[in-house]
């Protein structure tokens, strides 16, 4: 499992190719990008804050759980932080599995868990000012 937190952009294909996963027949990737509008406000940029030590630990827990549950051969998670312009890539989740069903379910499980459990916070910068994006609470703490 590869987990990376970085300010720099990434090339999803190059990152996936760097992992030579044997026996994989299916690979599913999710790429999240900064949208250019939110509730009719024009988004110029996003400022992403995170809690580095916990983010790393939480993503490892999320990845390991998905790997076991969905029979994944490999998991790659890259999440950026800092200031990102609209249309820039934010996050990449790529998983490999022998078959497609596990790959789809595993990738979606990681993305869903990441959005409710990983300690990232986003501030949207628009011409009208900066607004924190409303967040989510982990299922087991609701």
């Amino acid at each position, binding site marked *: 499992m590869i987990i990376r937190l970085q300010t720099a952009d990434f090339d999803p294909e190059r990152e996936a190719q760097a992992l030579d996963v044997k026996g994989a027949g299916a690979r599913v990737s999710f790429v999240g990008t900064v949208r250019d509008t939110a509730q009719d406000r024009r988004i110029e940029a996003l400022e992403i804050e*995170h*809690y580095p030590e916990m983010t790393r630990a939480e993503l490892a827990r999320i990845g390991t759980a998905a790997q076991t549950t969905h029979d994944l051969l490999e998991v790659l998670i890259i999440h950026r932080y800092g200031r990102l312009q609209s249309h820039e890539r934010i996050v990449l989740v790529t998983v490999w599995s022998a078959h497609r069903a596990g790959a789809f379910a595993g990738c979606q499980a990681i993305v869903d868990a990441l959005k409710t459990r*990983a*300690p990232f*916070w986003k501030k949207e910068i628009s011409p009208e000012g900066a607004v924190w994006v409303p*967040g989510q*609470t982990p299922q087991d703490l609701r």
Partner: protein
Amino acid sequence: MITVRCFATVREILGCETRTLPPSSTPQLASDILRIVAGARTTDLPKPLLVAINCEHASLTSPVKDGDEIAFFPPVSGG
């Protein structure tokens, strides 16, 4: 020593990123630590307020001991 870390709106409201507290001689819960660092501003904090102890999700009723790192933050918005 207990390390307290605040993120996002909690950091902005309390005006403080990291703070250390001396260990207590009596058992403490996360809510006790919150009372010490937030005081009257507790009511200004986001609801729900999320808590992590040693980089794992916890709650306001979780116990905190000497050497722990406790963090307070609003609901998350990653991905």
